[in-house]
């Protein structure tokens, strides 16, 4: 397998006496969709925050293409190619969907001294925004004010904004949160489409979606990695069933199976 693009080694995050993430080592490779599962409070969102730079690590290391990036701020990490979307929709509500993506793309072409030119006229940024909207399936909604979009469309916009920055790594925090069946299906298709070109880390509660798209699954419990492997292995693992269901019963994706936590 090729070298990992984003890797962590013994990553820890403590809040006072509470260990939210403990000794997590994982790798993200281009073209591989890596899902993160676990019950509520397992530390999944914290881990994403550590990787994106929204939270500083207590100890451990994060490397990007072999280079240590543990001390980089969130904006610096974005600039080197780590993009993320948020669980709680984090868009520019007052701007149109297009402007949301355009602004995101502008981060790669800041041009701060071009004080007299209209930002919207700059072709590379405009085109990057259009491509991102297209990829996320929002081309038709480009001129709608973001706050007026449906919830599902806003979740798509979340990802479109991350895409507009042209990242190599995508950290997606519960992109399907609050979505109905149709919207979720569209999102799953989007994830499948993005998989080959990016190194994706997906945090999700929707088990069906996860088993449909993930090539590697890591299960976290209480901030630690419980198990990591292919979907089949995870599905069959007694330890995982124990953690989720409290017993060895069937997991999602199987007949007469229940849904995970």
């Amino acid at each position, binding site marked *: 397998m090729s070298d990992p693009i984003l890797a962590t080694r013994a990553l820890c995050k403590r809040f006072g006496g509470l260990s939210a993430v403990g000794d997590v080592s994982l790798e993200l490779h281009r073209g591989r969709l890596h899902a993160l599962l676990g019950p509520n409070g397992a530390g999944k969102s914290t881990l994403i925050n550590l990787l994106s730079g929204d939270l500083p690590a207590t100890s451990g290391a994060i490397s990007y293409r072999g280079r240590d990036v543990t001390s980089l701020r969130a904006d610096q990490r974005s600039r080197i190619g780590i993009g*993320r979307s948020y669980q709680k929709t*984090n868009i520019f509500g007052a701007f149109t969907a297009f402007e949301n993506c355009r602004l995101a793309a*502008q981060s790669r072409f800041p041009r701060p001294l071009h*004080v*007299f030119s*209209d*930002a919207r006229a700059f072709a590379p940024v405009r085109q990057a925004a259009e491509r991102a909207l297209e990829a996320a399936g929002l081309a038709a909604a480009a001129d709608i004010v*973001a706050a007026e979009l449906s919830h599902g469309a806003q979740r798509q916009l979340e990802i479109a*904004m991350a895409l507009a920055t042209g990242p190599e790594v995508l950290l997606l925090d519960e992109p399907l949160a609050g979505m109905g069946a149709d919207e979720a299906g569209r999102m799953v298709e989007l994830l499948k489409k993005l998989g080959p070109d990016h190194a994706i880390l997906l945090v999700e509660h929707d088990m069906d979606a996860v088993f449909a798209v993930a090539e590697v699954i890591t299960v976290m419990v209480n901030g630690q990695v419980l198990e990591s492997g292919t979907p089949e292995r995870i599905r069959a693992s007694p330890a995982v069933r124990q953690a989720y269901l409290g017993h060895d019963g069937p997991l999602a994706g199987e007949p007469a199976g229940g849904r995970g936590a």
Partner: protein
Amino acid sequence: MNRGNIALAVALALLAAFPAAGATFYVELVTKVMILAIFAMSLDLLVGYTGLVSFGHAAFYGVGAYALALSAPRYEPANLWLTLPGAVLLAGLAALAVGFFVVRARGTYFIMVTLAFAQMFHFVFHDTEIGRGSDGISMNFKPVASVAGFAPFDLGKATHLYYFVLAALVAVFAFLRLLLRSPLGRTFQGIKSNEHRMVSLGFPVFRYKLASFTIAGAIGGLAGYLSALQFGFVNPELLSWHQSGNVLLMLILGGLGRLTGGVVGAFAFVALQEVFQSLTDRWQLLFGATIVLLVIFLPGGVAGVADRFRRPPSREPFHV
């Protein structure tokens, strides 16, 4: 936007025609208002478009004013074309220096530290030798606008000053309009809308906030310079927090986040002040009470009231 541009053109025409119709007293009054409008617009860049509520903007107004007063020679007039850019530059540098510290502070802290730093400037001009103390400085001559001996206009004449200030107002308005649709200006607005996401998208937000603070300070300094130009006199009250509070008030009167709001707010503010001062010596009481009532009942300002009539309810803009 077309309706907006027509309204702007009409307003400009009215302002341009005004001196022909008005007595000198009113010409000078409107000149004063236009200077305050420049001051208010400069703060609007910071507050209305970048989302940084500063309660210390008067500091840079004062720096611009004192720059003229301190650089004016005693026995001959200063040169406009030298002192004006110098004042703007100085105010911008002061804003850069202060901003370097205060932009690190967020939210409420930012309000408090801007107030504190402005008080520091006030202290320097009021209590030390630099500003010659609380009596202020009088200038014996108005600056001349001469280039190689030729002066195209005489700032000592009220109408000439009026048109010069009007030209400055239009220039500042046009500059800010252009700035706000440029990449830099859009970044400012992104920061106001959702700073956290801007960081997450890869923008080095500190630098942009500092840039906004500096530009706002420089333009504020321009307004201060013009004020010193008009009155021929400066004193530390130009940097008082009353001044900082008043310019914020102008913004809320005129409506935040729209450039014309600064202009409307300046007119409304001066109008209020004149009305209250004519009613009673205790006008500050009326003024303060009006501010309180205004915030409670009309937080969108004058423009906000107009908005409620203009926009159909189904398209209410999202209010974060």
